[in-house]
């Protein structure tokens, strides 16, 4: 019963939080560019407006994929709040990621096709890193279950500092921030228009936006596990991490997928390797 309440709580609270975070994100980005920026509630206005538009669809699959993406994202956050198994959560969110790619491939538009291919490469880049992070958490705490991880008496950050940076890479890719924003980005004036989201419009774009808020909360939730011992620690850690994301987003140019694959895998794997050896020796 308690678990059910937690799941529902997660599913309801997460999009609100995610929307607020993305509003603050846009505001801080604007300040960094010495602009004033939109109101913090702007993402909610955007989504509400999208839901008020006429439905234009290419085919049934596109709609189906958008919904599966949303449901998988919501479910993974719900399971996270319910302190379920990390591996289960990982597979649920991977389904969402794959369906987003399928939705892009379902439409004949070349922009959407290219965007979907690039999104697929992004998925390929961050999923192994997330698995490594989960595996290292298991090595420290001896469990994949979040409720047992929360019983561990020391912040994981002490044992796994490098793994946190690796998770930071996954966060940057998942949030589609520069230098990894090549499948789609918030300000979509780039050579592939809006990439994987090109053929979504109106309510379905709104659904994807909400799913994206869930994903933000999902990755931030995993980050929070690294300092679960104190509430202040969690808040400080998340605020610093997200601010670093925004800074990186504003100071980096977008790179190619080849660069991303080489760079993220080599650095990510090297850091995981060093951290795990150190864990083993220590």
């Amino acid at each position, binding site marked *: 019963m308690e678990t059910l309440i937690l799941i529902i709580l997660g599913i309801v609270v997460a999009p609100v939080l995610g929307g607020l975070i993305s509003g603050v994100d*846009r505001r801080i980005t*604007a300040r960094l*560019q*010495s*602009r*004033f*920026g*939109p*109101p913090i509630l*702007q993402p*909610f*206005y*955007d989504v*509400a*407006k999208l*839901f*008020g*538009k*006429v*439905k*234009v669809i290419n085919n049934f699959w596109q709609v189906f994929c958008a919904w599966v993406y949303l449901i998988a994202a919501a479910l993974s956050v719900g399971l996270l709040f319910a302190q379920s198994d990390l591996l289960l959560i990982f597979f649920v969110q991977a389904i969402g990621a794959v369906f987003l790619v399928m939705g892009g491939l379902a439409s004949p538009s070349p922009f959407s096709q290219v965007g979907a291919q690039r999104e697929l490469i992004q998925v390929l880049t961050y999923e192994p890193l997330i698995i490594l992070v989960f595996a290292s958490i298991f090595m420290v705490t001896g469990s994949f279950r979040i409720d047992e991880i929360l019983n561990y008496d020391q912040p994981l950050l002490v044992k796994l500092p490098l793994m946190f940076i690796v998770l930071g890479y996954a966060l940057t890719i998942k949030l589609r921030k520069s230098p990894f924003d090549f499948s789609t980005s918030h*300000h*979509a*004036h*780039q050579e592939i*228009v*809006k990439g994987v989201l*090109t*053929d*979504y*419009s*109106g309510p379905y*774009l709104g659904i994807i936006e909400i799913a994206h808020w869930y994903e933000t909360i999902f990755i931030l939730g995993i980050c929070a596990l690294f300092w679960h011992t104190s509430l202040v620690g969690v808040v400080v850690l998340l605020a610093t991490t997200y601010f670093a994301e925004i800074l990186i987003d504003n100071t980096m140019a977008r790179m190619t997928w080849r660069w991303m694959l080489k760079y993220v895998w080599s650095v990510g794997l090297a850091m995981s390797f060093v951290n795990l050896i150190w864990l083993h020796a220590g």
Partner: protein
Amino acid sequence: MLKKFIDNSRAKSPWIMHFDCGSCNGCDIEVLACLTPMYDVERFGVINVGNPKHADVLLVTGTVNPRNAKVLRNIYDQMPDPKGVIAIGACGLSGGVFRECYNVLGGIDKVIPVDVYVPGCPAKPEAIIDGVVAALAKFEGLKG
């Protein structure tokens, strides 16, 4: 209540798309100037999107001719309702100095319905922002 929120949001987040039907670039520069930190239209929720399927307001500059009329029509048709169209600059309004040319059809309104006309050669960024606000009045009109 939800409907009211959606209607309010419509006026708060106009995503614009900019199409250039062969302008001299004067008006285009002014449109893009609106997006710079100086005028910062993102304050009002405006985002410049490159995709007609995501756009609410279409800004058109330059003269229409038989060739780009098809493209303009196509872009207009791809935008989901409710949508607004703003014609910018003397060229967009009537053809401007190119009015009598053999290949110029005249104003944008010969091809697609226009909601707001922003005069000037080039139109000032302030006037363009005013035009977008005036186009939002159309969305407000949808409320009832």
